[in-house]
């Protein structure tokens, strides 16, 4: 499958040698674990989803360092600086996603057995029931492994390592492979599922299984399919719905994290999972493939798929597929899910102190990567650093015990919640005579290339202005920004992925047609979305002066009262 993707192959081989070096008992030629005989299944209790049974394949991965390291990566990054109980980790989230993904699969099988068995029949010559068992196991493993690519404090570090050239190239290749845009974290999880280390661990586990006459024979699974499911794809077009269970607008990941993050923070947000499970549908559909990306993928997976048919009523060459859909009668469930997501952004992910913590960490990691590079460290070695890191690393030699005083200082702030303060807070809800300039500023932030440039320009201007005010603040602009803890924070607003509803003819009805998602996100943008400028408390005044000059030149609003209204003061 990866023969024409050299960068992905490189990441797989890097991960294989990393696993063998760091965890020789579990991975590589000399590995010995699991040592004792394995039970075929065990139950694990979860605070959200109750008692659930896990198979031996899942247990052997859960008991390996791949999953165990997730215990030390907080699901909501540094949000515990604001919500003290938000201490849940990627580990329990991964088990939760497995549970929900499995329930969605079971619900479809219980309510639409005919369609499911037809799919099984089309993709394999074996008995349909056995194919279904195999697919369910592959789905559950994909759910379990979907977050194994995370590093310290989850998304805050992903933003930094995704800038490494190795990940830019591999992300490009993964997007080409599956025919849709993917991220760096997904590259690692996808590649981990493709390693020899994981395959060999599962093989060894199979040999250690305890005899149990009640259990049926063990059937092989396809780890290629597991890897593809992680990124929302599959080895066969008819299995697209399984990829959607793991990664889509209706996925199990969202169903778990919405409730887990809300519960962890102590927020009374809920949605009706039971109704979701009783209404989720499987619908025959098609995926267009105008440039042949999917055709290339299905040929490489040896799924026995014929070339994509062209012409007919459909405008582009395409593959027949099955998609996950919710019927219109489940609109209220979707409504609850969307509201939950928007509220979580408002309460947790975009909370000003959460953004302050994560922004500070991001700046620290960016600075460290720069120093590692200039010290001659290769990109592969930097990747290994991130694989080694988890949230505990903040107390170690790369951070709190660093030989560099500035790194120690920022790490100390992160470890002890000595966080930067908001100096300016810009919102599109501010009414002003020159309001269209502000509107245009916010619109430009919606464009990927302009957002990066706009934020960089604004920060550069702030740094330069600070030096004009006090040349002792740093040797140049970037140094002054670093020392004063000043930066511009323009987070990505919540997006509501395109969710299609079933039972309608083309064009497929999306949720926007049924309830006012656009109006809600518009209201969020106006009243709860902010662009902020931060600073360490001890430099607030100088940053405020410099930022006002910089904002005036970038947004081009001339009147002072606008900036007065955006200035944040501690009463």
């Amino acid at each position, binding site marked *: 499958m990866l023969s024409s993707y050299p960068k992905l192959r490189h990441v797989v081989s890097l991960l294989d040698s990393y696993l063998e070096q760091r965890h020789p008992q579990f991975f590589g030629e000399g590995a010995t674990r699991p040592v004792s005989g394995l039970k075929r299944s065990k139950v694990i209790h979860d605070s959200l989803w109750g008692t659930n049974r896990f198979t031996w394949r899942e247990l052997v991965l859960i008991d390996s360092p791949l999953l165990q390291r997730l215990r030390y990566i907080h699901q909501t990054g540094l949000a515990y600086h604001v919500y003290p109980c938000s201490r849940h980790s990627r580990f329990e989230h991964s088990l939760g996603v497995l549970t929900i993904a499995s329930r969605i699969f079971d619900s479809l099988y219980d309510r639409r057995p005919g369609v499911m068995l037809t799919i099984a029949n089309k993709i394999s010559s074996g008995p349909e029931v056995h194919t279904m068992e195999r697919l369910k196991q592959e789905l559950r493993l994909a759910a379990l492994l979907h977050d194994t690519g995370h590093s310290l404090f989850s998304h805050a570090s992903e933003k930094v390592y995704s800038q490494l050239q190795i990940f830019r190239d591999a992300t490009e290749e993964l997007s080409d492979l599956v025919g849709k845009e993917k991220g760096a974290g997904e590259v690692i999880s996808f590649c981990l599922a493709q390693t020899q280390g994981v395959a060999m661990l599962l093989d060894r586990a199979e040999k250690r299984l305890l005899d149990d006459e009640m259990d049926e024979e063990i059937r092989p699974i396809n780890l290629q399919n597991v890897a593809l499911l992680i990124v929302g794809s599959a080895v066969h077009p008819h299995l697209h719905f399984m990829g959607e269970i793991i990664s889509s607008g209706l996925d199990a990941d969202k169903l778990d994290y919405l409730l887990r993050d809300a519960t962890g923070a102590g927020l009374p947000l809920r949605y009706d999972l039971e109704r979701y499970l009783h209404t989720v549908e499987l619908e025959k559909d098609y*995926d267009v493939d*105008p440039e042949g990306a999917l055709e290339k993928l299905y040929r490489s997976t040896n799924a026995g798929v014929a070339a994509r048919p062209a012409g007919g009523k459909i*405008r582009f060459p395409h593959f027949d597929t099955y998609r996950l859909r919710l019927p219109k009668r489940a609109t209220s469930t979707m409504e609850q899910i969307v509201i939950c997501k928007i509220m979580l952004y408002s309460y947790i992910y975009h909370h000003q102190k959460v953004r302050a913590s994560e922004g500070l960490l991001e700046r620290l990691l960016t600075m460290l990567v720069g120093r590692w590079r200039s010290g001659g460290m290769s990109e592969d070695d930097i990747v290994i650093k991130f694989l080694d890191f988890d949230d505990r690393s903040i107390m170690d030699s790369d951070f709190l015990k660093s030989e560099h005083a500035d790194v120690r200082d920022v790490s100390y702030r992160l470890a002890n919640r000595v966080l930067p303060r908001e100096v300016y807070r810009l919102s599109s809800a501010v009414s002003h005579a020159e309001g269209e300039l502000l509107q245009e500023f*916010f619109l430009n932030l919606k*464009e990927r290339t302009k957002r990066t440039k706009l934020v960089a320009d604004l920060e550069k201007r702030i740094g330069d202005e600070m030096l004009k005010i006090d040349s002792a603040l740093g040797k140049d602009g970037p140094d002054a920004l670093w020392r004063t803890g000043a930066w511009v924070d323009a987070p990505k607003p919540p997006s509501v992925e395109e969710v299609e509803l079933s039972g309608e003819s083309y*064009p497929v009805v999306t949720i926007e047609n049924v309830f006012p998602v656009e109006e809600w996100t518009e209201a969020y943008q106006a009243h709860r979305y902010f662009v902020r400028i931060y600073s360490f408390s001890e430099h607030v005044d100088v940053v405020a002066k410099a930022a006002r000059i910089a904002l005036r030149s970038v947004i081009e609003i001339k009147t002072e009262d606008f900036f007065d209204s955006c200035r944040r003061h501690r009463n």
Partner: protein
Amino acid sequence: MSTLLSLGDTVKQLALLMKENQVKMVFKNEAPWHLLFYRWKQEAELQIRPPFLDKLRFDSDGHYPRCRELSEFLHGLHTTCSARVANPSYEEIILQPQVTRLWKKAQTDLDEHARQFLEQGLAIAKEEFPAHQANA
């Protein structure tokens, strides 16, 4: 100027042109926008064309080739209130007059290559948008 046009600049200028040429921008169906840019990427034969066009990635997991970067910007038009929908039918996008004044000003800075490029986009829009209104 044409080489400096970004995706957002192009959407804004094209939206102005569509308004001037009475091409209705449908709401709640992004398909014509994606099909327009997909065709534009394939068909634009101009020697000087903005580099962003060749970099646009279109996902192939739905009913039409769909560009996430374009979707993000189209949503941005709504969430920043640069575009609204006309009540009560919610079918057509209306541009906000204050914001379009700024876009109009930028229109005067466009060079000949940029104008040709946008004219080509308008020609595709004239085919794609009415077709989707008929389907709606």
